[in-house]
């Protein structure tokens, strides 16, 4: 499986993402500069964390208007997997590939520590490696991770089983403790916590490995079926 890690000016978790898929999962991966990106031959797109364009205007807003987003939207529309973590999640909501918006954390402070998450959906291409209700430990590192959506969208997210992860102890004020959501079609996941920083016991947790394994396994199953 071939992964593209999109690098925007200000991305700073791109190498962690690359390390996770390339070194830990032993899959093909490239760091792709956003302006030179040709995503046609990639199987999955990873949008890493960081501060694209210095968070100017709103986190992820400027990156969401860049030319590479057209390719990412096409890739997503074809049903191929897209994973956005932290700033990647912010970019996905700004690009309207996922519903809702990000606000400053409830207590305004930047937070950087491990959080316990509850797996809410074990039936998506990203989460089949987990069990519903399972508690996993991922680090968070964000100042604007307070997920907001209106009642109507929240009901829709619940009805379609689009909430992938919730926080056990909501650190940032997110609506309904939401830590990560999936689009309706099931191939785009955005989450504030960092699975790519939880891939080795050395890092304090390797709970993130199963997320990448799920993507790879599900892609192989689909690919094998279609081949």
């Amino acid at each position, binding site marked *: 499986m071939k992964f593209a890690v999109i690098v925007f000016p200000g991305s700073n978790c791109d190498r962690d993402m690359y390390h996770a898929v390339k070194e830990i999962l032993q899959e093909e991966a490239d760091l792709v500069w956003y302006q030179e990106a040709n995503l046609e031959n990639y199987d999955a797109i990873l949008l890493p964390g960081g501060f694209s364009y210095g968070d100017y*205007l*709103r986190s992820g*807003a*400027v990156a969401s*208007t860049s030319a590479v987003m057209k390719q990412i939207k096409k890739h997503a529309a074809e049903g191929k997997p897209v994973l956005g973590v932290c700033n990647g999640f912010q970019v996905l*909501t*700004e690009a309207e590939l996922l*519903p*809702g*918006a990000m*606000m*400053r*954390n*409830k*207590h*305004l402070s930047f937070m950087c520590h491990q959080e316990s998450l509850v797996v809410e959906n074990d039936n998506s291409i990203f989460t089949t490696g987990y069990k519903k209700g399972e508690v996993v430990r991922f680090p968070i590192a964000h100042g604007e991770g*307070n997920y*907001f*959506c*209106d009642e109507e969208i929240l009901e829709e997210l619940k009805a379609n089983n689009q909430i992938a992860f919730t926080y056990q102890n909501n650190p940032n*004020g997110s609506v309904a403790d939401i830590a990560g959501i999936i689009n309706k079609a099931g191939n785009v996941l955005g989450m504030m916590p960092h699975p790519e920083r939880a891939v080795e016991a050395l890092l304090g947790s390797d709970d993130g490995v199963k997320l990448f394994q799920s993507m790879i396994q599900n892609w192989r199953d689909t690919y094998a079926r279609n081949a």
Partner: protein
Amino acid sequence: MKKVTVHITLKQGVLDPQGKAIQESLNSLGYQEIQEARVGKYIELQVEDGPDLEARVKEMCDKLLANPVIEDYSISTEGARQS
């Protein structure tokens, strides 16, 4: 050229943590009369004048400058036409 200003605020009903912090600070300075503070953005644009100026700026707000999920905006145009 025209100067167009865009004011962006969080929608009423959306919690504004920055505004809340400012309100509490003002209260602690003794300004008990402050009931609420809300923080927004002010963007100044120098735009070539045209017949659909306001509509185009509105489009810019919808596409980039404001996030309609959490923000409202208002547009005001000022300044006379310059040669």
